[in-house]
């Protein structure tokens, strides 16, 4: 890796770890101090490495520097004497603060931080922003780009969430079985949304999308590494993320256009990720109990599996179960697509027209798809309606191509 890429890369992977370990050592109320120390560490790295060259083990160098900076900080600030030391003393008998950057402590700290950030009192949107900032080292601008929102909006959202995080003062240290159980659902939801934010992102920026997906994967992976959080649902969610990520490269062409599933180059699918997905999916089914993550992961499994003649029947069955667990317009539309694949487009149209999703662009593009070759004029009208409602440039481009195809077909008749 080039030196110019190395620091941003390390920032992504190590910043969150440093903040988590420091917060785990003192207290969430002082999260700003932890973030300052982490930022200063990277500042120092860019200065020193520029002169002396990159050290042999850059991550270890960062940990040592962060460690020393923390010790210096607390030596020179009365805040330690007055506040933290007391907290520490009351918690355990360690007078000397020990910032240990062992693998075990890093993982534990990150896990504790994930559970702190995924506070059910904080809105889902704000939880995702917090996770991106604190756990993944995203800047406010990067978060704003991912959400296609103004930086100011993100700043405000983060400010409110961080105040809650501090005031709530979630006991990051004593993460016990019961607390984990009570928060696990909201942790999984946040990671699921974080992943989807990347996978179905509003932005066309492919790098940001991949980053969001791989960060969600990394955090979900941490959950499977700890026996307390390695639940059947966690495995199902991780399997889902692996299967979906395996197709990331194939979903978008060089021009940034979305490629429909049927037309994807399957050789671009990442086999390693598919195998990992299979592994976690098997784990998920060993635990017993079926969640929406199980169903979605299994649907994704069928999509990555070489054609089975009953593939769409399996998928329809899973969507039927999924819609009974939780209604969402996306699930309703996907279920109807699978229904049409099994029973044909004409019956599919009847099923689709019952959905009443007149403000949803995907509703019209589904109808456009189903009417194609049955009634091309109607198909075009539906596609045009979809474009009028769409907010995604990629979606509009894809639909416009379909309309062109149908118009050319009519002209040739």
């Amino acid at each position: 890796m080039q030196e110019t890429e190395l620091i941003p890369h390390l920032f992504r992977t190590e910043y969150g770890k440093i903040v988590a370990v420091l917060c785990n050592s003192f207290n969430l109320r002082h999260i700003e101090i932890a973030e300052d120390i982490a930022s200063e560490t990277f500042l120092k790295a860019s200065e020193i490495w520029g002169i002396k060259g990159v050290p042999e083990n850059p991550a270890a160098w960062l940990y040592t520097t962060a460690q020393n900076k923390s010790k210096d900080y607390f030596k020179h600030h009365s805040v330690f004497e007055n506040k933290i030391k007391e907290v520490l003393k009351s918690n355990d008998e360690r007078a000397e603060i020990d910032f240990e950057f062992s693998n075990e402590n890093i993982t534990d700290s990150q896990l504790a931080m994930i559970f702190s950030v995924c506070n059910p009192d904080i809105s889902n949107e704000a939880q995702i922003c917090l996770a991106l900032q604190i756990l993944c080292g995203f800047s406010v601008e990067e978060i704003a780009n991912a959400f296609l929102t103004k930086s100011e909006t993100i700043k405000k959202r983060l400010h409110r969430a961080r105040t809650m995080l501090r005031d709530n003062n979630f006991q990051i240290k004593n993460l016990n079985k019961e607390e984990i159980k009570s928060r696990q659902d909201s942790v999984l939801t946040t990671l699921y949304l974080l992943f989807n934010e990347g996978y179905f992102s509003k932005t066309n920026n492919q790098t940001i999308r991949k980053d969001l997906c791989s960060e969600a994967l990394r955090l979900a992976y941490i959950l499977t590494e700890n026996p307390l959080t390695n639940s059947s649902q966690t495995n199902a969610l991780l399997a889902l993320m692996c299967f979906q990520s395996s197709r990331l490269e194939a979903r978008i062409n060089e021009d940034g256009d979305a490629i429909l599933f049927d037309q994807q180059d399957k050789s671009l699918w990442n086999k390693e990720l598919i195998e990992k997905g299979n592994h976690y999916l098997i784990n998920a089914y060993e635990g017993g109990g079926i969640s929406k993550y199980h169903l979605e992961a299994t649907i994704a499994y069928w999509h990555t599996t070489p054609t089975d003649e009953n593939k769409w029947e399996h998928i329809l069955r899973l969507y039927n179960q999924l819609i009974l667990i939780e209604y969402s317009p996306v699930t309703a539309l996907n279920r109807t697509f699978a229904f049409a694949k099994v029973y044909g487009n004409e019956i599919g149209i009847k099923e689709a027209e019952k959905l009443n999703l007149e403000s949803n662009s995907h509703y019209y593009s589904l109808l456009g798809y189903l009417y194609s070759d049955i009634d091309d004029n109607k198909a075009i009208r539906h596609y045009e309606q979809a474009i009028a409602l769409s907010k995604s440039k990629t979606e509009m481009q894809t639909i416009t191509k379909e309309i062109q195809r149908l118009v050319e077909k009519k002209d040739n008749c």
Partner: protein
Amino acid sequence: MKEFLLIFRADYKAMPQASPEEMQATTQRWMNWVAGIAAQGKLADRGNRLVNTGKVLKDDTIVSDGPYAEIKESILGYSVVKAASLEEAAKLAHGCPIFAVGGNVEVREINPL
């Protein structure tokens, strides 16, 4: 939105003995139908099926075993749907697989206590 109870009735005796494949196909039809209502965001409670034995009490002492002499049909199951009117609720019952075995659906508005 109001809630409506859909009561599925059929004559157990008149129903043909189904092979495992036919039973699987029947399950699939029911799943498709009920998921079709859920896909419209109008399913309040999937409900349940009922086993075909039961008892009817007239008072503490007069108990008879079902199925019942007075009526040929018995209740096979129920679901709860959401709709703006009785007419809309009745429309949701269209395509119910119970019709295929000569059964019927009773649609009743729930009057909450």
